[in-house]
């Protein structure tokens, strides 16, 4: 076997494994004084990594390890997107990691986060169900550790328990589905399996079971019950990671597998997605209306956003893939901006995350209030911001394939979502409050990440070269 192919095509994962091991070793030898520089070093290294891998090196699709690992340019684009999201989360996490009880665990946060990133990278470029499963678990087991990171807090431990048990259950169901796929087709390679799929009842059943596993990661509606509790209990930096990066990877992997492996039963999974999209968007929106805690609120908002992301999957075309990746990119900028504000307000005000605590935020912290407003406008899809364009493209992709009623329902839900996003804007700008959050100055790296997100919200939609650039890579998926 030619080992040079591994280094040629698997460069992202190998570089990430190197970074993770280096971080682990640095954590061992650094000591109290070394840990002070840990944040700067990790952000710098990750920035270098992104700079080196942001554009895919190769323009062709290649298989290594006998087809277990498939390199494609578009998966390279998604990987660099995930890495950018991780960098933004790292930037926002500094203040929280600097607290007295988490300071000693600082290194663990970086190592665990990077391990989940490696898992996602393997998951999205898998060509075999075993590789896919290992990647999925590598992404979700360290994630459970991250959710339970604040181990002396009841909420974090409870969220961790809920997350890991639901994750185990979902992955058990998914494996059960995969076992029947193996039994009926005799192979686990994506490429070979397509030929064996004939739409028998057992295979439809295994499609549904398989969908459970990724539906859980994406928190689509029948599998969403863990979402709100875990998002509320987990540390805010982890919540933002969970809501953006992990969702992006799962959405891409789901689309690749549905298109590649389940191509012969396309009408079945489209029907399945049809129901799931309507349920996710509607139920996510309706539950978001009644939330008083901002983290829970963002959880339900992210459930309904996951429903919108699935509109790109249901179209099943290369254009749908482009819109999906663009949607995820814009969603990442907007959601990380919102979580960045929530995080910095929580850290600087002694843990305030209720919606009432945001009353009068504009009076005391006008810049944060404006950033939050723009992020929420983008999430709701108000025209000059990127969220409008991403929603428009993803609706167009689904509309093109004849899902007219579905797009109409999604549009109605956009209006509902506008109402609850504006509730927060109203709280910040109009509601009176005798004791608003005191004026504070966020730490430097949070400000950098908020500025980057803000630039993303404004520029991503207006600079058409970004959408076209993604579109260049989605040929043939």
């Amino acid at each position, binding site marked *: 076997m030619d080992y040079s192919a591994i280094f040629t095509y698997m460069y992202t994962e190998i570089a990430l494994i190197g970074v993770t091991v280096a971080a682990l070793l640095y954590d061992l030898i650094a000591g109290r004084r070394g840990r002070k520089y840990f944040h700067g070093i990790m952000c710098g290294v990750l920035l270098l990594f992104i700079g080196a891998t942001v554009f895919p090196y190769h323009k062709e699709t290649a298989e290594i390890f006998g087809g277990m690992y498939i390199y494609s340019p578009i998966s390279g684009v998604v990987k660099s997107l995930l890495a950018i999201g991780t960098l933004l989360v790292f930037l926002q996490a500094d203040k929280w990691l600097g607290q007295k009880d988490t300071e000693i665990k600082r290194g663990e946060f970086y190592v665990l986060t990077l391990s989940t990133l490696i898992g996602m990278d393997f998951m999205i470029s898998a060509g075999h*169900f075993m590789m896919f499963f290992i990647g999925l678990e590598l992404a979700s087991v360290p994630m459970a*550790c991250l959710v339970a990171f604040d181990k002396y807090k009841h909420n974090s*431990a409870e*969220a961790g328990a809920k997350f*890991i*048990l639901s994750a*185990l*259950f979902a992955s058990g169901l998914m494996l059960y589905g995969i076992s029947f796929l193996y039994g009926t087709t*005799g192979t686990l390679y994506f490429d070979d399996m397509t030929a064996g799929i004939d739409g028998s009842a057992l295979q439809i059943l295994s499609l549904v079971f398989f969908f459970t596993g990724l539906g859980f990661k994406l928190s689509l509606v029948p599998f969403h019950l863990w979402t709100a509790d875990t998002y509320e209990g987990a540390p805010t930096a982890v919540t933002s990671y969970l809501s953006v990066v992990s969702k992006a990877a799962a959405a891409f992997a789901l689309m690749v597998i549905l298109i590649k492996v389940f191509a012969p039963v396309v009408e079945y999974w489209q029907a399945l997605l049809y129901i799931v999209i309507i349920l996710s968007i509607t139920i996510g929106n309706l539950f978001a209306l009644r939330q008083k805690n901002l983290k829970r609120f963002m959880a339900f908002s992210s459930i309904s956003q996951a429903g919108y992301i699935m509109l790109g999957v249901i179209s099943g075309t290369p254009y749908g893939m482009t819109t999906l990746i663009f949607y995820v990119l814009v969603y990442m900028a907007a959601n990380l901006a919102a979580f960045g504000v929530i995080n910095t307000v929580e850290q600087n005000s002694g843990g305030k995350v209720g919606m009432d605590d945001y009353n009068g935020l504009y009076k005391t912290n006008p810049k944060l209030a404006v950033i939050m407003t723009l992020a929420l406008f983008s999430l709701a899809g108000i025209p000059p911001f990127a969220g409008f364009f991403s929603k428009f493209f993803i609706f167009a992709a689904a509309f093109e394939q004849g899902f007219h009623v579905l797009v109409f329902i999604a549009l109605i839900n956009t209006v509902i979502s506008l109402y609850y996003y504006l509730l927060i804007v109203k709280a910040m700008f109009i509601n009176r409050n005798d004791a608003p959050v005191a004026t504070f100055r966020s730490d430097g790296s949070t400000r950098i990440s908020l500025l980057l997100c803000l630039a993303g919200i404004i520029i991503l939609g207006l600079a058409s070269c970004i959408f076209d650039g993604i579109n260049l890579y989605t040929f043939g998926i």
Partner: protein
Amino acid sequence: MVQMEYYLIVSTIMMFVGIYGFLTRRNLLAMLISVELILNSVDINFVVFNRFLFPGQLEGFFFSLFAIGISAAETAVAIAIIINIYRNMRNIQVKNLNKLKW
């Protein structure tokens, strides 16, 4: 030789006993054991399909080996989290995990 169907009956029963247990048990460790039943039923499925339907290859065996390894890792993390809950609350009943709801 025992026919394939008998193995599949056993694995299906294990699967649904696991689901039933996961939904009805009120102790975190019992829930974990139920999930382990599900994962083990999957391993049986893979091995049986490989042994009876595709005896020329090893994919199913390998998958079940990896699945066993990964489920061990997951269980380790789950037990660590459960121990942490025990330290915080002095018991591991599900009814005490009620601070986060609605």
